[in-house]
């Protein structure tokens, strides 16, 4: 069966998305590029503009400038057709409180058309809501509504799933289950765009990330590259720290060598760290411990979203990022 032309287009492309409310810039010229198969983390503190960006992607709000396409179609131009292979929710999923969970799914399935209604039972089962499906949504907990939101999204058999803080309000077990479900869906080939302020969640699930700060993207690219770009810091314990410090300072490629408590700390790439270990031994200094302090996503996140660094500082790690 030939692949529909639409499928060959990138699941998400956003160029120069700008949203201004009065004099507040909520989203500041955001460029995004989500490729097929990505589990793409859209990361930023609360109020950074993540949800507004997602709403623009789904055509719920109009950008002040810029455009977004889903599989090559702009929701503002193509209407509901642009969402043909897309599902998800922004902020908390919302349902009609006076209808049962099942009736709500029947309603959205009717608005989906096709065979969506035939997937209601399996979707409810997947999110473990079958036994509560005949109860009104007004009696559902936040976690149950989140799960119903996922069930509603899966009725559409999406190729792209947009999830906005899906684990918010869930208990630890619920968060674990939600992440397992996202992993499973991604494993089945679904592209996922996951907005989150939970660093562990993004680090665990995503292969690519965009980090947003005050409405603007400060990094977009492969997560592993972001971590590598941060430079590796090393901790060093030796039999003669004074001499070791001198060797570190003299070694080409080593920077920021300093004492830090009982250790020495320096920054270098992996090759230079190896050369340094040989130089230390040749200088008569025995190594008691040499360990890499790989930057966590949390380090990078706070560096990018709270520090003075702007997008330019992350430039070396940027992959096709915005200007």
């Amino acid at each position, binding site marked *: 069966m030939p692949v529909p032309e639409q499928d060959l287009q990138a699941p998400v492309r956003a160029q120069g998305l700008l949203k201004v409310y009065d004099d507040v810039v909520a989203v500041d010229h955001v460029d995004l590029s989500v490729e097929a198969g990505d589990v793409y983390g859209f990361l930023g503190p609360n109020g950074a503009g993540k949800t507004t960006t997602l*709403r623009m992607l789904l055509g719920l709000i109009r950008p002040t400038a810029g455009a977004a396409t889903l599989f090559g179609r702009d929701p503002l131009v193509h209407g*509901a057709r642009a969402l*043909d292979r897309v599902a998800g929710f922004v902020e908390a999923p*919302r349902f009609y*409180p006076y209808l049962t969970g099942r*009736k709500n799914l029947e309603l959205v399935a*009717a*608005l*989906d058309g096709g065979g969506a209604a035939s997937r209601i039972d399996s979707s409810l089962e997947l999110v473990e809501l079958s036994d509560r499906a005949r109860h009104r949504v007004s009696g559902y907990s936040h976690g149950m509504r989140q799960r119903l939101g996922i069930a509603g999204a899966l009725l*559409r058999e999406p190729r792209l799933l947009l999830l906005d803080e899906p684990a918010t309000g869930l208990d630890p077990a619920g968060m674990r289950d939600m992440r397992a479900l996202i992993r499973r869906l991604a494993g089945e080939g679904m592209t996922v765009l996951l907005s989150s302020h939970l660093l562990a969640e993004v680090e665990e699930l995503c292969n690519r990330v965009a980090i947003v700060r005050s409405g603007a993207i400060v990094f977009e690219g492969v997560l592993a590259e972001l971590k590598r770009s941060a430079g590796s810091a090393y901790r060093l314990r030796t039999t003669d720290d004074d001499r070791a410090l001198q060797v570190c300072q003299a070694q080409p490629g080593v920077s920021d060598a300093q004492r830090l408590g009982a250790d020495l700390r320096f920054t270098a790439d992996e090759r230079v760290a190896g050369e340094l270990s040989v130089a230390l031994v040749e200088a008569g200094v025995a190594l008691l411990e040499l360990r890499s302090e790989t930057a966590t996503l949390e380090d990078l996140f706070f560096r990018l979203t709270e520090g003075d660094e702007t997008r330019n500082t992350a430039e070396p790690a940027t992959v096709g990022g915005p200007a």
Partner: protein
Amino acid sequence: MRAGRRPNTATVYRWELRKLISQKRTYLGLAFVIVMPVLFVVALSVRNGSPEGVAFGRYVHQSGLAVPLVLLIFGSIWLFPLVTALVAGDIVAAEDHNGTLKTILTRSVDRGRIFAAKAMVAGTYAFVALLVMGIVAVIAGGLEAGLHPLTTLSGTKVSVGHGLALMAAALGVYMMPMLAVASIGLLLSTVTRNSAGSVVGTLLISLLLQLVTILPGLGGLKPYLLPEQFNAWQGLLRVPADWAPIGHAAWVCALYAVPCLVAAYLVFLRRDVAGG
């Protein structure tokens, strides 16, 4: 979802109806139109009088068919505008309040179809409310005065069957200003995103237009104001039927309804859905 199997407006309309009948508010309006004829007939029975200065008022003890016609006149002041506004003013704003607009706008139906279905449901509700009032009023009036030939505004009598047909036609004509009121409610609901504000606003506009009709010096405006169109059906109760007020009401009501509907439609198509 794949393309080519997109739901049509009829499907959306059916679900809008299902949502409507699942809400308690829906039955509040219907309760009004059921209780009003019953109370009216009970009052007639207890006091044994008849409404003064109202068309068909003096015939309420002669034929039960006169009761719904009198109630059409009384109901135009606030009851039917209110019942119409209860749904029309709420039907978009409630989705804003619940945050469900984003739920239905991220499926496979274009905004235009959703709006069309909502407009049709608002109109359907107004029609059902009017019909229920008519049926209950005929039954209550029949129980009080019996179903006898109806005296028309020309003084001639028409048979019960003919009277019922005329009443049904009168309800149809009465729907024209009701739909205009619904259109105003729909516009307010879409623009304000506030249910209570839209319902009250629609009613206030309706009452304000009635106030204008009695202000000195503004009598010339009366034929072009909405409240006056609620009396157009009386042309059917003349022999021969006077179609002039009905034709006039048709274009005057369209003058109110069409701009409101077009404006509401355009706002709905372009508006940001930022809540919820």
